[in-house]
């Protein structure tokens, strides 16, 4: 590729025509909304927030330089910071892999010869289109300890359900269960991937005498690995920023057991008006997510199978 483009460039260079210039100008004009948007709402904010993170700033008065004090407080003095990190990690560690596996399982089930497939797909997908605020309210009621659907169902099988959102031990599992209710979002993507696996691969494997398990392990999984991997990354990034459920359903409680990172960041920014401190928190979050994403790439990407496409009809 590199050689080719260099070659192409050599050929093009003398032909800096008026038309080429115009096309360049037009091109940049067309993408200018994105350029402006990126500069104003992504690049500049990220840079300026480094500066804010080194100040004490309540918006009403000008920011005051305090050096690394915010970071020092965050790492060495604020025990809530560690609590929120733990809560968030707990949530991510369970909801992301469980959601991935469950969504994939549903997709596998749906990928068989089943009557009314679109109907089932719709059913599983509905929670994913429900506004998060509405599903949060719905789940407050489902998880209600005395009359909630979940505890009523548990009572039917003789289990005295916990207090869910009122119990520090069960509040995080409750939110994880709620997140699993929405696995339909991933399921649709897996289903699409599964249906795109060329049948010839399975047929060839069958000729070689492979059983279902072999076919699953040596064809389905490798063929699906890019999709699974992509969803893993996106899932991690999204789950690290969980906010609405905790804000609406628990407010971070009981005793900070659902105080997630972004909720605490929000609290610092818009309740205590400590914009500097919140900016420092944002940067720490950014680094954490970056490191975890890179690690995931390092560990998992080599196992992802990318050789497909030869069978496209």
């Amino acid at each position, binding site marked *: 590729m590199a050689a080719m483009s260099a070659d192409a460039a050599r050929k093009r260079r003398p032909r800096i025509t008026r038309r080429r210039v115009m096309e360049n100008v037009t091109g940049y004009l067309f993408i200018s909304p994105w350029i402006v948007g990126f500069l104003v709402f992504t690049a500049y904010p990220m840079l300026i927030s480094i500066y804010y993170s080194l100040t004490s700033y309540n918006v009403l008065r000008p920011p005051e330089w305090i050096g690394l004090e915010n970071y020092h407080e965050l790492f060495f003095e604020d025990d809530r910071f560690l609590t929120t990190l733990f809560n968030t990690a707990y949530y991510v560690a369970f909801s992301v892999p469980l959601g991935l596996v469950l969504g994939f399982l549903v997709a596998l089930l749906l990928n068989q010869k089943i009557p009314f497939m679109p109907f089932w797909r719709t059913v599983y997908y509905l929670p994913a289109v429900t506004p998060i605020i509405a599903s949060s309210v719905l789940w407050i009621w489902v998880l209600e300890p005395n009359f909630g659907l979940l505890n009523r169902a548990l009572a039917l099988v003789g289990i005295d359900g916990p207090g869910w959102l009122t119990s520090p031990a069960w509040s995080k599992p409750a939110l994880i269960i709620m997140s699993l209710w929405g696995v339909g979002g991933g399921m649709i993507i897996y289903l699409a991937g599964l249906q795109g696996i060329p049948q010839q691969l399975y047929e060839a494997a069958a000729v070689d005498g492979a059983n279902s398990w072999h076919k699953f392990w040596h064809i389905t999984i490798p063929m699906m690995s890019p999709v699974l991997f992509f969803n893993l990354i996106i899932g991690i990034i999204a789950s690290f920023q969980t906010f609405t459920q905790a804000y609406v359903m628990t407010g971070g409680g*009981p005793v900070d057991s659902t105080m997630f990172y972004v909720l605490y960041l929000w609290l610092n920014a818009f309740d205590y008006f400590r914009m500097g401190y919140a900016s420092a928190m944002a940067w720490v979050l950014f680094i954490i997510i970056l490191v975890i994403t890179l690690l995931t790439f390092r560990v998992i990407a080599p196992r992802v199978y990318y050789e497909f496409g030869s069978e496209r009809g």
Partner: protein
Amino acid sequence: MSHETDKQNEIYELVREMRREGCRMTRRDVLRLGAFAGISLAGIASLVEACAPAGGNQSSGVGSSGGKKSGPQPTKIAGGENALLTYWGAWGGTALQPEKQSIEKWNKDHPDMQVKALQIADIDQKFLVAVAGRRPPDIIKLDRFMLPGYALSGAIKDLTDRINADKIDVKQWFSACMNETKLNGKYYGLPWNTDDRGLWYNNEILSKAGVKEPPKTTDEILRMGKEFTQKKGKRLTRIGFDGYGGNWQIGWHWAWGGEWLKDNNRKANWNNEIGESWLSWLQENRKYLGGPSTIDAFGKTFQGESQGPYWTGQIVMVMDGSWVAGDWKKYAQKVDMGVADAPRPQDMVDKGPITWSGGFAFCIPEGIDDKKADAAWEFIKYYCMDADPVLAMATQAGNMPAIEKLARDDRYLSANKFNKKFVDLMPHSRFRDLTPVGNELWFDIIWPMPNDVFYGKKTVKQALADSEAKANKVLDRGWKEAERG
């Protein structure tokens, strides 16, 4: 790199197919989408038609002045769209009507200074965002103990000159109320109301059990609370005494003779024997109720308003505010309720009754022009000092006037059989110590601190020590910033 291009090709493939199918289906899809829009609009319209409220008086919500969320309704209660002044912080519940009436009267008398009153949820947060965003309201009703914080961060105007120019007698208010609006010798607001707290008890249940008068000491109430508590399996069906419920979370320290802050409000002062004794006592109470999860689960069964837990007997004894009298009058006059002094430890009973007070003030935000500020000032004077609006709130919503003479006015005292009791308690009232970090200190550190003990996350000593250390850090930061600004 080859897989990159391959993948792109696949996407083209999909997109191509989308296009083929899509183009063919467009008309039908457009019809369906159109039908969706039409039906949903029609649905909304007909629902609205069917459901539109007849009047504006069916609102609800207990107007509590002490809790963090004095969550009023999100509606405009009075004033036209082109009113000169915008007032944030109108209340709902029983307070809605008197506020509406008084503002409508003002608007009629002052066509050039009309006020539009809005109810704002999470007003503290929203107010700072609004000032920060340079779009403040012209008038704001704020919880007084948070005024120093607002004043120091430059969110509200210094009203001292106006008070002096108009020769307003600052002594007409309960002195502590006026004091709460003061910082470094300057006034930042006019007190609007006050409140205090007492032991509310359901006398029907007590007298049925042969109890003649409510408990006076903390030992007694702990024991009696246990006797009156009822359970079905693990679940509560009745709370005899809820020591941490109602509205007294920060009162016990005072009841035990403690002081929350020391050194001119620079240092926390509860990690000591006093703190230990009331917190252990409170822990006892929570234990026999079955722990916080059980209590919270029970709390979820409470209904609002007319079916509130005090009237239904779901809670027999609890410390709560004078404003409850207004709800009682509106929803539960048939229920035999009583109010007594807060219980105190045996050795403190001789020192007399104790209560704590809060209340709201009217302030003028920074960032509005002089013309509006002048008009806002005129309205605030009317709203906080004129007998009509103050007594309307007092008689209809159980809001104790912050002006002593009006609190002792017969119209208020005779409006509700509990009012006299609460006014008589006022001389024994404690007020939250003023700091620049009131919100964080009282609501995020002190108020929830016992929870760590109830949930078994920390011992009493640990909880006191940790929260005190944290409070000292926050106080330190707050005062440092205050001196700098």
